[in-house]
């Protein structure tokens, strides 16, 4: 099948409109499904229901229920099936409703999908995308609220994407679908209604390229997924007290754009890493380590990490809210690193 070359559009083009993050994801899927008949969607209630978050509403009308396929509640089973289908000529996108359920598919992803290419000496490929969610504060308690992207980031052979805007979500998902490797795509379920500008013309965003969401000189705030919004809000507060914060979104935890992170910290000499996963042994630890090794002689202060509190996510609203990093926490930490009171 012919694969038309698509140009990568990194700058805002002439024509654009506002889309929610959910709409941007659906548009990416629809475009890729029109472009490539090998792409299909598998998951629980993805067809007529359009998922519990309604992100896929309408796709089964255009593409039919043999390309937007409702599965039994068998995460390991349909993910395993998708691994085999990906090896043999299809390009499945599987939908794992809540990120917590990745515990059910770990063997299929970590032992099968991630290793097939390497174990076969490069002969078999697994062009598979797993879309799933992360993020607390929906009052959904301990088994529907975790941010477990660090688990997959730890496994060689997988790529891990965390979009923070509708524009990024669309461009990154299109790249993920065209990638010949298994890619896990984490969507913050609190961000599906977040609006942003998205060009009408086609574009993709390469995996492994960080984006500077805001330029600054005094401190670097590295943030992922919904924490990018938190970091941007903190940067605004910092601006009011005369601190210029740079906000960088790595967009993919693997591959990781180490150079952009290190160069920013060489400029600012201070860094805070904010991620909604657990800080311990997590994404913030890895990124802080990359910065500490790469910009050690430029640092004025140790790299600060802010992640989810190290507890199962509680149900009760005031308790749950206490577990999630906030703009106030980032603001206070930045002010302290910059020695302002």
């Amino acid at each position, binding site marked *: 099948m012919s694969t038309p070359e698509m140009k990568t559009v990194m700058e805002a083009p002439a024509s654009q409109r506002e889309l929610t993050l959910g709409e941007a994801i659906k548009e990416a899927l629809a475009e890729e499904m029109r472009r490539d008949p090998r792409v299909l969607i598998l998951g629980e209630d993805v067809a007529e229901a359009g998922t519990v978050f309604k992100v896929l509403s309408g796709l089964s009308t255009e593409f039919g229920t043999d390309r937007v396929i409702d599965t*039994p509640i068998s995460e390991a089973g349909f993910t395993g099936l998708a691994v085999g*289908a990906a090896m043999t000529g299809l390009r499945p996108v599987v939908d794992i409703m809540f990120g917590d359920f990745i515990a059910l598919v770990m063997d299929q992803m970590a032992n099968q999908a991630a290793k097939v290419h390497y174990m076969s000496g490069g002969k078999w490929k697994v062009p598979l995308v797993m879309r799933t969610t992360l993020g607390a504060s929906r009052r959904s308690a301990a088994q529907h609220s975790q941010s477990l992207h660090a688990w997959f980031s730890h496994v060689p052979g997988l790529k891990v994407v965390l979009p923070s805007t509708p524009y990024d979500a669309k461009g990154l998902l299109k790249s993920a679908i065209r990638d010949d490797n298994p890619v896990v795509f984490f969507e913050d379920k609190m961000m599906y209604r977040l609006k942003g500008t998205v060009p009408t013309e086609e574009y993709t965003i390469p995996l492994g390229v960080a984006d500077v969401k805001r330029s600054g000189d005094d401190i670097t705030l590295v943030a992922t997924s919904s924490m990018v919004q938190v970091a941007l809000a903190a940067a605004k507060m910092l601006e009011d007290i005369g601190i210029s914060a740079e906000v960088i979104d790595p967009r993919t935890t693997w591959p990781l754009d180490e150079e952009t992170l290190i160069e920013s910290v060489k400029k600012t000499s201070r860094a805070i890493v904010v991620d909604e996963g657990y800080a311990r042994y997590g994404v913030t630890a890895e990124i802080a380590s990359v910065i500490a090794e790469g910009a050690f002689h430029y640092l004025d202060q140790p790299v600060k990490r802010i992640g989810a509190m190290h507890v199962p996510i509680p149900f009760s609203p005031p308790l749950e809210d206490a577990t999630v990093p906030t703009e106030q926490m980032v603001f206070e930490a930045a002010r302290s690193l910059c020695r302002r009171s």
Partner: protein
Amino acid sequence: MAKKTKKTSEPELSTAGKSDHLLQMYRQMLAIRFFEERVNDLYTRAIMPGLAHLYIGEEAIAVGICSALRSDDYITSTHRGHGHCLAKGASPDRMFAELLGKEAGYCRGKGGSMHIADPATGNLGANAIVGGSAGIATGAAFSAKRLGNGRVAVCFFGEGALGQGVLYETMNLAQLWKLPVIYVCENNTYNEYTHYSETTAGDVLARPRAFGIFAERVDGQDVRAVYVAAKSVVDKARNGDGPAFLLCDTYRYRGHHVGDVSREYYRSKQEEQKWVSERDPIKFFGDWLIAEKHADTAQLQKISAEVASNIDAAVQFAMAAPFPETREVQQDVYA
């Protein structure tokens, strides 16, 4: 209707003109037996790194099943997978090279004994997670149906995998969507060091049948019976009739792996000896070939000598082959 057909395994294979096919199956069974004996030898002499799980005693299943497949049909194999790979068409020299971690191996030495994979022969890969390939085999069948290429996928697994939930998740999917996949359960009697009766409740065949999947028990020591059963379900799957499940009774002559030599704590020598002397699939088939005049003793001896010589040459090839360059370690993590 009133007239009864002959015994299941007879009509297909006792007819004249089938001798070549029969002798080819005999040759393949011997090749697996000799291959595995050499693996044991290489391990014992500390030439082979790691360890291996031998298929000796179970040869009739791999050969009977794969003889019913097209070369472009898919298989998934297991940690005890050398027999499946050879029966599907893998070449012993590159197999040995893989077992020794050499660059000439099927996976450039990165997979080893438990991960032989070869797209050229439809081998999606041997899998070292028990039941780990149920998804992959079912997914290959999903692709085959979707792409309309007429391929069938065979999922080999041992009876130990009957304890894994993903097997039932994928059998449910296969029957729901009528996928051309054959689940071949090799009941070699032992889940590692535990008799399967201590781990397996109820009637095994009732499990696939609960999904509405056709399921049949087969004498796994009789290659003709395995072939006939396989041919029937493979043809049906290819014609769109959906999945099937074959339960093949067999026996693992050797230990769980090559280093498992003191086995008295979980099974007796008498039990082992009984299978070896009374139920050996190669002897059983060889005797039948002679009795039915498909071959004489001299012909079988000639085949045996040829196979032995091929296996010798394959070992020589692998021993002489170079290891991969160390820089290859970071290659092929990503496509």
